């Protein structure tokens, strides 16, 4: 942590003993460090001062209870002050009494205490009571968590799953209660008190006044005013449902001692692919969960063969089966997995790849490239510390008509330094989860931000015919896929996918559709923890700057269509503090821009499938992180190519294809060239290039100096 972060965290009361010791050391020895401390305190105190002040606080969110009565005090006249002085200490901010935890959220990583919980329209959450009862919530909603076995639903929609042993879970409603006997059911309560209960499996008792409705099998009950009607059949699709987590082996942690190696998958279930095995502890790498982990070993199913540069596994999931388990069609899937590798050396490959794709049917060579209508991909680099695991995550919207989901995980060569193959000296994956969700945040939220001075004026749901208005931000947040129904006009407004902290957003621009942002900006992934994906299959045109990955967001832009920008496209940002992940994958698509800059952290561009990039300026590395350009199959042309500025690490991988540069500029940062296959053409004489690129294997063709492996 930087000094500044240490100080801030200390002031927020979140620094552990080790951090405090570090900070102590800094502050003890440096007057400058102490000055920084007080500088940060200035803003800290100013915020405290500003928020304690109630009058004229129109910029603040409503606060029900001020922390203290100090402001009243300040504004009072002296005489009043003295009179009040004796009593005002008594009036203190009453903190919520220490209440016991009744439920958790986000896979147990967060705890929820007894009390009220409300969701705004469009919001959704999933909570798990400590008894194991899982409840999916959809806003607008207000509820109270009463105990581990009981909640009150004031209004809103919920989907409940009660496991064996947790029977008796009760949901109170304004007019009665629903008692569960081990089942899945949906319940909605309107603001007027009208109620709808549907049981999908098992049995519930719905008590309304003195009347008890016993509902078994598939039934629905509607209560409105004095009318109560019980009908057979139920429809899960109108309720949110708890997500389904696919578990393979023991908790997806690859503990079963067997090799999965085989060819491409043909049947549902089971892993297949290249040569892998299950390892226990391997050198300094310890399984993340359980006592086994998946080890990638070869790029083919046979040990002595080499087919590609990636060691990968696939798995086919039948979404119909998932739908059965879940009670309704899954709408979104999240893949999360952890990777690690041995310390290795400079030659050790560190890239891992992940993919999710949807298919209509299982064909002969079913992989992530065949018969695909929608897909996402991401890559991740392990660090050289075997003591830490790195986490990959990836989300995909599931189209309603496609039955099969294909998952791909793999380790990939990224240092092309040899002809022998990848250095998988110990590359591992563990703790893989696949989480299916439905009915959570059912649509995409769009917020409009007007002008530069503006405030958030309104937010509205995205609909196909609603067009973003002039001078506004279009913020796509939530798992819904924003489909661009038709060509959007010039000056459509700024496009922001996943704006807020920890938000998620995705954009799919279908073939034959054009989105023109005019001179507005585009941002894919704006804030801390945001996860943003954009898949451009149609045509995206921009005249303003376009950013992929800012402020520690994880952002992916997959281009299978066309992207034309007359301005700058930037991956990651300057002064990025931690781990912004910015990826641009040009898979058979084409990109044209004034400039393409890969600045910081994990920013990478991959060109394959015959994709093309044509830019005036291409900047690889601009600050202090790592930037990688990989050309697997395709062509990249740059008038000016700036390599490694600042203390950045620039990595250029050629695995095939062509890189054409008019003028090559060398910054002071580190630079690594991996020329495995393909050619680099530079319109400069050899004499000028001698200091920049290695001497080996080059030739002269007219004005061009050509680097190749042969």
């Amino acid at each position, binding site marked *: 942590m930087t000094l500044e972060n240490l100080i801030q965290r200390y002031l927020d009361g979140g620094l552990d003993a080790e951090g405090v010791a570090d900070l102590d050391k800094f502050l003890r020895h440096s007057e400058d460090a102490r000055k920084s401390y007080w500088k940060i*305190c200035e803003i800290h*105190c100013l915020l405290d001062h500003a928020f304690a002040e109630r009058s004229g606080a129109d910029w603040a*969110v409503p606060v029900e209870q001020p922390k203290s009565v100090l402001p009243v005090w300040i504004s009072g006249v002296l005489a009043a002050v003295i009179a009040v002085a004796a009593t005002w200490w008594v009036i203190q901010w009453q*903190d919520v009494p220490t209440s016991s935890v009744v439920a958790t959220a986000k896979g147990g990583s967060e705890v929820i205490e007894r009390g009220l919980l409300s969701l705004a329209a469009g919001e959704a959450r999933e909570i798990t009571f400590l008894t194991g009862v899982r409840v999916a919530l959809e806003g607008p909603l207000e509820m109270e968590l009463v105990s581990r076995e009981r909640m009150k639903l004031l209004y809103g929609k919920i989907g409940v799953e009660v496991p064996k042993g947790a029977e008796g879970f009760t949901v109170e409603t304004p007019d009665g209660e629903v008692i569960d006997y081990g089942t899945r059911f949906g319940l909605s309560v309107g603001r007027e008190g009208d109620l709808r209960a549907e049981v999908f499996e098992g049995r519930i008792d719905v008590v309304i006044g003195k009347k008890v409705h016993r509902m078994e099998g598939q039934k629905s009950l509607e209560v409105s005013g004095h009318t109560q009607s019980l009908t057979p059949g139920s429809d899960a699709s109108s309720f949110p449902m708890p997500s389904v987590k696919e578990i393979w082996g023991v908790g997806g942690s690859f503990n079963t001692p067997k090799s999965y190696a085989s060819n491409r998958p043909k049947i549902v279930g089971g892993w297949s692919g290249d040569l892998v095995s299950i390892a226990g502890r391997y050198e300094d790498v310890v399984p993340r969960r359980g006592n086994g982990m998946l080890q990638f070993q070869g790029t083919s199913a046979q040990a002595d063969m080499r087919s590609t540069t990636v060691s990968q596994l696939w798995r086919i999931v039948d979404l119909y089966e998932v739908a059965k388990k879940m009670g309704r069609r899954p709408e979104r899937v999240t893949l999360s997995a952890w990777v690690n590798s041995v310390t290795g050396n400079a030659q050790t490959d560190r890239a891992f790849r992940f993919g999710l794709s949807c298919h209509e049917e299982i064909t002969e060579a079913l992989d992530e490239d065949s018969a695909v209508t929608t897909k996402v991909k991401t890559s991740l680099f392990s660090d050289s510390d075997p003591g830490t695991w790195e986490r990959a995550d990836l989300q995909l919207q599931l189209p309603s008509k496609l039955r099969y989901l294909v998952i791909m995980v793999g380790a990939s060569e990224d240092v092309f330094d040899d002809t022998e193959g990848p250095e998988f000296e110990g590359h591992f994956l563990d703790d893989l989860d696949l989480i299916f969700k439905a009915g959570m945040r059912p649509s995409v939220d769009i917020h409009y931000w007007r002008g530069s001075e503006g405030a958030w004026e309104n937010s509205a749901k995205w609909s196909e015919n609603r067009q973003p208005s002039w001078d506004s931000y279009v913020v796509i947040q939530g798992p819904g896929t924003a489909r661009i129904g038709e060509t959007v006009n010039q000056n459509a407004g700024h496009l922001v996918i996943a704006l807020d*902290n920890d938000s998620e957003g995705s954009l799919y621009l279908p073939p034959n559709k054009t989105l023109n942002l005019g001179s507005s900006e585009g941002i894919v992934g704006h804030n801390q923890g945001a996860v943003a994906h954009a898949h451009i299959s149609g045509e995206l045109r921009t005249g303003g700057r376009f950013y992929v990955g800012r402020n520690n967001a994880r952002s992916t832009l997959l281009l299978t269509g066309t992207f034309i920008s007359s301005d700058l496209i930037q991956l990651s940002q300057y002064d990025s503090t931690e781990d912004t992940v910015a990826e641009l994958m040009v898979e058979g698509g084409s990109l044209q821009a004034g400039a393409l800059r890969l600045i910081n952290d994990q920013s990478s561009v991959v060109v394959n499938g015959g994709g093309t990039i044509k830019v005036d300026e291409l900047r690889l590395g601009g600050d202090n992180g790592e930037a990688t350009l990989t050309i697997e199959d395709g062509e990249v042309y740059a008038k000016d190519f700036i390599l490694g500025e600042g203390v950045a690490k620039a990595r250029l991988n050629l695995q095939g294809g062509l890189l054409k540069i008019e003028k090559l500029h060398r910054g002071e940062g580190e630079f690594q060239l991996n020329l495995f296959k393909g050619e680099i053409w530079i319109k400069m004489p050899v004499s000028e290039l001698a200091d920049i690129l290695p001497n080996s294997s080059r030739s002269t063709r007219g004005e061009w100096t050509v680097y190749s492996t042969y």
Partner: protein
Amino acid sequence: MKDEIKHTAHVQGLFVKEVSRIRGFIISMMPGGSEVDDLLQETFLTITAKAGSFEKGTNFTAWAITIARFKVMEHFAKSKKRGLLLGDEVLERLMDEAQEHFSENPQVDLLKRCLGKLSPSVRQMLAQRYARGWKPEKIAAEAGWGANSVYVSLSRARTTLRECIRRQMKGGAA
């Protein structure tokens, strides 16, 4: 006797005028900010009790901060969370150098303008932290985030605000 009451009232009046600075000093020394109100109260009581020893015309803020400083150290001496506090030596040094940082007038107006530029969720988080006095863990639980995200977001928000205020001041001067 009447004079004494008048003098005490005068000193209390000065306290009211300077309360945000004194509070600021305490906040700056108290990680997490949980006992700030108590310490401010104790400082007020001590200032009232010792009003007689304050000489009119001398620097009130410096005097009050000296008392607040004493209260803070007294509190730390009793505190059970010693391990999560900076060492006495560092605390003393920081407090020695505190005065110069509490001389300027707070730029609340600039701050408000800058707050308007943050995203609503970040503003809400700041309100929870500062207006409601919530701990980052509680903010995290409420928002469905990890606590770490909250710490990082708070840090980032403050950095952004500082930068924005600095720019605004520059702009204002030009």
